[in-house]
């Protein structure tokens, strides 16, 4: 099967600092791929390079067989760690705008946006400005923006951060649904129980270098650990403070 994401010998230097050193990994359609690392380990820089926001110093960062550009917007749904929607614009207008960015017509984006709002119980808040919504409600809209147009790749950076258990389950169900539909999901989180529950494979980086890569079972076996949390702690135990990364 052709991988949705194909990263090969990818290195990134920003200024004089090497942030990422020769990373290689693939993400297949229909799998949840947990991308793990401590703060500042280089996860966000890798994602930004994948999305063409940073230019790789060397190596390749392909999505669907080529370097991603804004022309391929319909194939990607991104939920960044630093949430970023237009707070002075209504919930539905945010969804419509990003739907249009992904190649949908205004009418299609409106229908898809309203369907999503109904699914997450926010239909009555459609015309409220985003700043009038709670943090959790805004996060749902952010997820809605990511899944608009059913992209083949979802990149979700700590999507459940700050959500209550009910909304967290709702959100994870939506992720699961898109996985079932064949979407590849890059899932970034610090919650290892979510990794155990959702992830098919995982990738752990430290200071921009690969430390663990494989299925959840394979990684546990390799590190002779009972849980992914044990693996993570073991990797980071020696040097908890990250020096590189962004």
């Amino acid at each position: 099967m052709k991988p949705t994401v194909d990263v090969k010998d990818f290195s990134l230097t920003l200024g004089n600092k090497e942030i990422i050193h020769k990373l290689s990994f693939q993400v297949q359609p229909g799998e949840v791929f947990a991308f793990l690392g401590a703060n500042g380990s280089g996860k966000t820089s890798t994602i930004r390079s994948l999305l063409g926001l940073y230019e790789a110093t060397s190596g390749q960062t392909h999505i669907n067989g080529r370097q991603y550009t804004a022309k391929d917007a319909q194939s990607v749904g991104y939920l960044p760690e630093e949430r970023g929607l237009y707070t002075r614009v209504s919930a539905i207008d945010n969804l419509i705008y990003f739907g249009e960015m992904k190649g949908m017509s205004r009418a299609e984006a409106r229908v898809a946006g309203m369907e999503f709002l109904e699914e997450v119980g926010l239909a009555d808040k459609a015309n409220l400005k985003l700043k009038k919504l709670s943090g959790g409600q805004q996060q749902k809209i952010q997820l809605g923006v990511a899944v608009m147009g059913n992209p083949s790749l979802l990149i979700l950076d700590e999507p459940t951060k700050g959500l209550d258990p009910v909304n967290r389950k709702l959100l994870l169900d939506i992720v699961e649904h898109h996985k079932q539909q064949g979407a590849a999901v890059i899932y970034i989180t610090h919650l290892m129980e979510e990794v155990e529950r959702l992830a098919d494979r995982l990738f752990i980086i430290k200071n921009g270098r690969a430390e663990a890569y494989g299925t959840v079972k394979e990684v546990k076996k390799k590190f002779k650990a009972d849980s992914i949390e044990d693996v993570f702690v073991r990797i980071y135990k020696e040097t908890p403070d990250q020096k590189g990364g962004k």
Partner: protein
Amino acid sequence: MSKLKSVVSHEYLTVVKQKGFWIYMIAMPLIFLFVFVLIGLAGKSDNNSLDKITSDLKDVAVVDASGLVSEELITSSGQKAYPANEYTQLRADVESGQLKGLIYYPKDILKTSQYDVYVSGVDFVFSTSVSELGGALLKNSLYEPLGSSEKIALAQQGAQGVTTTYANGTTSVGFTRFIVPGAIAAMFIIILMFSIGYILTSISDEKENRSMEMALTYLSPRTLILGKLIGVVLITLTQLVFFAVLAIVALLIAINTNFIQLPADFDLSALPVDPVAVLFGLGFLIIGFILFAALMAFVAVMLPAKQANSFSSIFYILPFVPFWFIYTVMTDPSNPVVQFITYFPLTAPTTSLVRNTVGNITVPEAALSLGIMTVVAALSLWLVVRVFPKGALEFQSALSWRTIFSKK
């Protein structure tokens, strides 16, 4: 193209759907109107004060020991003339407050050119009025031998010179030739004051609330920046149309209520249009707009939001420099300072527009100024597009010049 349309629509509607946008647009003219009303009320209050002073002036005595002041004039002005031997008593009356004022013309006034004014109390306006009354009585008395009141008025006020100028062998029109280029200059000032800042706010806001990263995931930097620029153009046009409608309504009301009286021969339909001045005016307006919008965008991309807002004040100060010495700009175009600000990019649009309005900029000067503006505007736009992907994701710190010109 459809993405660009979406960005333009988003940028435009995000601003014009804000209540604050319309409150600001309506509030500004209302504030101006309020100031005008205050000035009018102050004028009315001045008139009331003048009525009181005129009434008080009737209680001012006049003693003429010089023999130069006409008694008839004193009486017709409402004052009473007294013989010179009563001067001491009258002065004592003023001192005791029984009399409000006394004007005394001494015998040797021709040598000293001085007359004495005595006033009861410390009312500055009243004492000034008594003094001025004394001057007016003396002056009018001296003019009296001229005979007719018309001659006196002419001698006192002088005559007005009516100037006829010739251009290209024909009689040129008067002040009306300033109206069209002046309106273009006024439009640029409105744009500077009300619209240019939107581009900075738009980029800084997106950086600050992190929506920039989302936007750049789905849009090329070029599409995003172009969409923002076109959005600001549409916002500007909305504001200009709104203010133009308000101005026309206000003008019509002012004319119909005789608040403003246009010259009898004024004909709007025959407004003179100098095509060269209009073309250069529009050039300065459009290129000046692009120049300032690009510079604002550049600053917004280069710096974190708060620093960008502080730094942007430079773009509100420098364009107004020509107005600090407007008289020199209008009357002495060859002055080295005027020459400098005509070509310095940040002062060039306003200086050139003012000079274009009064007609003291030559075609080669205008072309050179416009050329410099165009080059700097193009360079600024190029820089914005170049730094956008790098600076747009730099939320905390300023972008270094080294980063801007580095290949990656």
